[in-house]
């Protein structure tokens, strides 16, 4: 029998705000446990939440970027459940009146483009982090209260590839909108999967399982590939799927049932009496929409028009916002748009990928790369020397000119100085001279290489070539 998979995702995205969702604590990571906390995010008696307006703005902007309808009236609700990572044992969330409704994300899989519909986007607070030691457990409340946006999709996805493409597209838009850093390693984006399969042609949905707390897109792909096959196998064998929550075991490469009573919840939602509803005006939403950053498609068009780049280059450069920003800085600082594109797409992206690093985390600065490009354009550096300088800029940072001087890499274009090298090489390689004169034009490359070697890479190749030709052809 032919089966089809029906997949819906719930994506939790930490917002890039200055402070937490309901208190004044900084929204930061990497601090010692329980040092970024206060009576509010620790749930002390008498402490009250105050809404972070910046988080509301970012969520509305995300809604605008994702084609949602913005609810001018939305409200807060308490979601009740006991767990040690919850300071109040209820989470402040939005139940029946979220900030954004509907929406869509365009994806492209195997050359087919289509829209994945969103159900809603709401705002809530993140929980703390439970840490397990050998014989005890601890809770780090630094993360508690981080603004968390939950995006819920319609059951519109049908394969692991589609889910993966959707998450990539979503991440690109949110990073572009500066809604979130979308740093997966930091846990900025986490995902719950709902998945069922049914025989092709059947109208009603199959029984679904839920896989919670996925923190990598590759993990989502693997988990879905496994789970879809598992469900097909069970149904083909005449079995039934149990509605349950399953856990993805990344090491074993399989999902496992977690039949825990904790998950049989009645959350007893009710309106949060400590907060007032969120009331927005059309004008406010409009002004937030007007300050939205340019999205990838528009930026790609602009790169082609404004910088005269081939469409291919533009596509590669805009894929990640930080790279596109970096490119623009380099291009504007050096004025040679195509060279900038070559350096960013080539050396820079290769080095970043080898170092597994984000561009803003590397010591390489845009103006330094621009300076390097200018040195090449001014013929102060030849390519091999430029690549050597780049390596230094990438690993240590610094000023390209200073590096050129310190390493003595400046190109030698003085023909007087180079003539001596040419003379030496012609004498030492009579066969190549013979070959060239015999019609093998390529032989001149070998001779050039020898001159470059003698100059320790500093010779201006064009001058060398001219000198060689005038000697050999003359």
């Amino acid at each position, binding site marked *: 029998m032919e089966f089809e998979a029906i997949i819906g995702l719930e994506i939790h995205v930490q917002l890039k705000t200055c402070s937490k969702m309901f208190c004044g604590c900084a929204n930061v990571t990497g601090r010692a446990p329980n040092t970024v906390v206060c009576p509010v995010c620790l749930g002390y*008696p008498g402490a009250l939440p105050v809404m972070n307006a910046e988080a509301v703005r970012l969520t509305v902007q995300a809604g605008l970027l994702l084609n949602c309808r913005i609810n001018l009236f939305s409200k807060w609700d308490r979601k009740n459940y006991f767990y040690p990572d919850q300071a109040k044992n209820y989470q402040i969330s939005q139940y029946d009146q979220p900030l954004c409704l509907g929406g869509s994300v365009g994806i492209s899989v195997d050359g087919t483009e289509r829209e994945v519909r969103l159900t809603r986007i709401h705002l809530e607070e993140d929980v703390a982090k439970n840490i397990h030691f050998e014989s005890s457990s601890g809770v780090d409340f630094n993360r508690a209260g981080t603004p968390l946006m939950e995006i819920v999709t319609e059951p519109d996805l049908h394969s692991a590839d589609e889910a993966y493409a959707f998450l990539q597209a979503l991440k690109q838009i949110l990073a572009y909108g500066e809604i979130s850093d979308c740093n997966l390693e930091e846990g900025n984006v986490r995902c719950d999967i709902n998945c069922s399969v049914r025989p092709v042609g059947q109208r009603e949905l199959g029984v679904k399982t839920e896989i919670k707390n996925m923190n990598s897109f590759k993990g989502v792909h693997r988990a879905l590939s496994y789970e879809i096959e598992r469900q097909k196998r069970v149904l083909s064998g005449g079995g039934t799927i149990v509605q349950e929550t399953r856990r993805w075991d990344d090491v074993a490469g399989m999902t496992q049932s977690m039949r825990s009573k904790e998950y049989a919840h009645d959350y*007893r939602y009710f309106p949060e009496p400590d907060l007032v509803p969120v009331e927005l005006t059309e004008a406010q939403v409009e002004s937030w929409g007007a300050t939205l950053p340019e999205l990838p498609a528009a930026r790609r068009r602009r790169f082609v028009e404004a910088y005269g780049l081939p469409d291919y280059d533009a596509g590669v450069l805009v894929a990640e916002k930080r790279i596109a920003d970096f490119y623009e800085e380099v291009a504007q600082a050096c004025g040679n748009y195509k060279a900038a594109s070559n350096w960013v797409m080539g050396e820079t992206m290769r080095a970043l990928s080898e170092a597994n690093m984000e561009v803003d985390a590397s010591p390489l600065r845009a103006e330094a790369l621009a300076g390097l490009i200018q040195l090449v354009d001014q013929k102060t550096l030849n390519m091999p020397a430029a690549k050597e300088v780049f390596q230094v800029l990438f690993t240590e940072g610094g000023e390209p000119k200073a590096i050129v001087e310190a390493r003595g890499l400046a190109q030698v274009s003085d023909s007087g100085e180079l003539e001596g090298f040419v003379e030496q090489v012609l004498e030492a390689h009579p066969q190549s001279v013979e070959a060239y004169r015999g019609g093998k034009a390529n032989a001149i490359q070998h001779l050039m290489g020898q001159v470059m070697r003698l100059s320790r890479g500093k010779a201006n190749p064009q001058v060398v070539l001219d000198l060689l030709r005038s000697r050999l052809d003359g």
Partner: protein
Amino acid sequence: MGNLHLETIESLQAKLREGACSSVEVVQDLLGAMEAVDGQVGAYLSVDAETALAEAAEADRRRADGKAGALNGVPVAIKDVLNVKGQPCTCGSKILEGFVSPYDATVVKRLREAGAVLLGRVNMDEFAMGSSTENSAFRTTRNPWDLSRVPGGSSGGSAAAVAAREAIASLGSDTGGSVRQPAAFCGCVGLKPSYGRVSRYGLTAYASSLDQVGPVTRTVSDAAALLQVLAGADPMDSTSVDAPVPDYREEIKLGMEGLTLGLPAEYFVEGTDPEVDAAVRAAVAQCEALGATVREVSLPHTPYAIAAYYIIATAEASANLARFDGVRYGRRVEGQDPIEMYGRTRAEGFGPEVKRRIVLGTYVLSSGYYDAYYLRAQKVRTLIRDDFAAAFGDCHALIAPVSPTVAYGVGEKTGDPLQMYLGDIFTVTANLAGLCGVALPCGFTAGGLPIGMQVLGPAFAEEQILRVAHAYEEATDWHTRRPALVEETVSSRQEG
């Protein structure tokens, strides 16, 4: 020992200004009064005498430096539900035994900024759930007028301390009458400000949409003086309202003339103690004599108020009290896993009334029951609010009894929670509708127990109800009477 503990805020401020006494002497006299009567009354849970005296000395220094604030050197007792940095905040519960608060409630901060001295922590029903202070996990507080009777609740300690003259004034909290009813039982003035008038930041929540902090004092003028300092928007409380704060102490002097007072028919009904009914009616007549116009009004949805209140309050409480789980602070009873730890901690930490309300609140919010209970109760709440809006279309304030009874015997109603709930019938409506209300003495029973009446006003019209109450108080002397046990503390040497 002197007699400074007998003063009101107003009279004390005059003496402090004139240099007739120091704040340290005031605190000393109050500590002396506690020594003399608190063994019998049981109003206080904890008193840090050393810190109070140090704060008083500080206030005296400020006065000498010409930097006296609005309440400089005035001692105020604090209900144990409000957070004071470095002090315990038990909320009358074993589950918070040993907890020391890391921060000041906004009202406490404002008192400090005005120069007040924080005197000590007064007893209450556990988590403010109760009407007699018998639900405190720590001690039974007695009514200073008759030690065999309750002081009312949940702010029973706040009212008993003021009535027994072991506090000049105190702060309480009112969720369904918890300031007004004990004030009435103890012959004090108790003010419940409009919802949003006073910040709730640092007030341990019972029912967030109903809770308000309010003062308990001996006179209306003193209540106005405290409200002046407490009122106003707070960025830490989103439900506090940025409405202008009038000069209460001046506004209350405008007199009764020209005011229309409403008598809600549903608050003068059978079942109320005849002595209470008669005293409140007499007070209404007195108001009329003072120049007010009196008319009857109707609040037709009153019969549904108790049910709506106990659904909404317990629903909110079930979530508010979920944080007491033994993980971060307070009492912890270990278990095999977190769930068992929660169960054991809460089983041992909470008393029976708190558990009853958590179970009730959890039930009314449960899937399948939400619409029938919580949602319906919210609709009733809207109807009650509309009732009051219609009534206030015709009058400036309403007059009613605070409670159908006067103070009852200790243990008399503990076996029947429902009877106890019904005693809140005249007070819960102001909380449901977000109104302001002030309770003040309007007579005594033949047996010598205080009777209270309440003046209810529209939201953010505190100056209006205080004006009515002040005009009445000026014309009567109920507020000047003292319980017999206070006489033991009166020094004949200084008593003129």
